[in-house]
């Protein structure tokens, strides 16, 4: 069963990664990072339920609750940043921000 859960988690992570790299809209990219996050959370719960040594614990579930709290805080911060970036350039296109480019 563990493999099925891990496959779901890996699929979520891969979808989020592809979305993050290919899409240009800042909000979509932000949602994609959340998707990758949830893929990892699925992994944590799966390993908690089916640990490799055979003794299930609640550690994975507790840890995932912590991660949800972190994700909520990060979402508040991230969306605020997106709003600020939008105010500067009037667009949500990520490719207009290239300040790290070597001149």
């Amino acid at each position, binding site marked *: 069963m563990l493999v099925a859960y891990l496959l779901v988690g890996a699929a979520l992570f891969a979808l989020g990664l592809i979305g993050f*790299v290919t899409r240009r809209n800042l909000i979509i990219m932000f949602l994609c990072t959340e998707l990758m996050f949830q893929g990892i959370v699925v992994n944590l719960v799966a390993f908690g339920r089916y640990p490799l040594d055979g003794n299930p614990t609640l550690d994975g579930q507790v840890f995932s609750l912590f991660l949800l709290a972190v994700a909520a805080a990060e979402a508040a911060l991230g969306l605020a940043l997106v709003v600020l970036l939008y105010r500067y350039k009037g667009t949500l296109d*990520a490719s207009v*921000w290239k300040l*790290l*480019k*070597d001149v």
Partner: protein
Amino acid sequence: MLLAQASTSLLPVDLYATLPFWPLLGAIFTGIMIALRLKAERAFWPVVLGVGVSAVLGVILFFDLPGMLPHKADAGVTGHVAEAAHEYHDPGFTHTIYNWISLGDENSLKHDQWISVNFYFDGLTGIMIAFVTVVSLMVMIYSIGYMRDHHGHPERGYERFFAFMGIFVFSMAMLVFAGNFVLLYLGWELVGLCSYLLIGFYYKKPSAAAAAKKAFIVNRIGDFGFALGIFALYMFIRPLTHSGENPLDYAVVFHYIGELSQGKITLVALLLLCGALGKSAQFPLYVWLPDAMEGPSPVSALIHAATMVTAGIYMIARCGPIFAASQTALNVIVVLGVIGAMLAATMAMAQYDMKRILAYSTISQLAYMFVALGCSTPASGVFHVFTHAFFKALLFLCAGSIMLQMGHIIDLRRFSGLRNILPHTKRLMLIGCLSLAGFPLLAGFWSKDEIVHASFVYHPIVGALMLITAGMTAYYTFRMYFLCFHGPLRLPKEAGDHPRESPPVMIAPLYVLALGAIVAGYVGVTFTMLMGDSFLGFLKPHGYFHHYLHASTVVGGEQHGGGLWLMYVSSAIAIAGIWLAWVRYGDAPVEDPDKAALGGLWRLWNAKYYLDELYDRLFVRPLRGLGRFFFATDNNGIDGLIWVVTAVPRAMGGGLRLLQNGALQGYALGMVIGLTVIVLLWRWLEINGA
């Protein structure tokens, strides 16, 4: 060293030893004023006060010094040339301030040897310091009024000027006071630095910047020889010294110099002479001095006429025991002196720039002093240094006064007939010119006449050449004077509508210098009642000045041998020169009569014998070519090699910088690819490795 110092000094020696530091203190204060951006209007106060304190101390020291010196059993004996080699009595005393550089450790045989900061006091010190500080003070006071524009506002760099001048007076006093060769060299280089800074005072003018560099570089050539001379002295003298004797102190060097072989002494003397040739602008290193006139007039008066350029004469006179022991070196000095005197005097006859005429005249007069040194009568040379300081400073400052009122025009073809516009300057200039020309009874006459006497005793041909040069001196001096003040009034348009006499702050110090130009000679003559053995019935050459110099390291006899008739001859020659100038230039003709009369010779003189061009071809251009070659080697050869070596990292960097494109998603993709590669590599190692 035995310090047989008498207790009769008026002020403590430690107080006299502070003399050089007052102008330095003033310069530092002025520097602080510059840093705080205070008003330039009052910037002269610290330096003028500092130099004023020095001048007071210097004059008191001059009168106080004879009582402070150790009394020799045979004081006043002339002609101690022969005795110097065997038995040397230190005529002065060394005042040590602190030990500076240690020359030996505890374990060596000769411990307790130092290069000290010490001052040497003898008759020569007293004379030099007195006139250096007094002339400096007069020039400083003059500069308060001179360094201003025609509205009376201080010109740009007013504070900087006074700060540099303060440092100069400090350096010159250190040079004169120095008690060992290293400290002498220090003062020597410091005055050179001040000269460089002040020639280039108007540094925005390309010609001034070039002249400053020229002065500095030509002096380097001479100073190279001077430094080698000091090294040689150390090498030769140190093995002879004992513990507690500093091998470069004057007293020690002169004590042991007689034990060296003739060849070594001549080598040292010739190397030291190199330094003197550069500093005192003698042939063949004189070329920097005419160009140095790009600096402000007070600088020309103080540094390039009265004080710094006489440092070479001072050094040779100070090293009397060395030079007296080498007739070869003395002969070289005479030959170079005669060449310099004749060259410079002829060049001065065909110039129009007043300050340059005076510069060539300075070279010529310094050459006179060299001849005196070479003829074994250094006291006469020092006497001429002393009188020359007054009348030449006076002449340069008068030229400065004219220049200021003529809107910085100094070309004699542009103006004439200034006698009514500048009455004070005219009167003062006349005194200076008469003194320089050697008109009887003025300062310049007495000292120049002694040198002519000495040169006649040395060799009649040298004497004759000196007399001819004296005639030329009178002629070119009064050619300049008549072209400036006589004839119809002509003014350059730069002078404005109403040129007037310079302010009192400039004229007053000139009267002091003029007084010196008249009476300074009388410290070197004796009044006598013996009609038959005197000049004009009551004056005899040699006086207080020469007795004063007996208690000094100036070694040499005094020459009376030429006979008093020579004084009448040289008077007649001076007056004839002035008369000839009156006949030819008395009404300041616009067309130069000499130019037409002398033709090619005049053009040769006007072009300064093409010596500048010759030096340019012989030295400057080859050296510049060499420099270009080295530059090209460095630029193409060595830099090219480095370019090849660095090509690899540069290419790698060029490739990698493409990756840094600034796009967020690009970096994300890079991370994903990197992570994938690492994970795959890890798996591959896990399967194939362990």
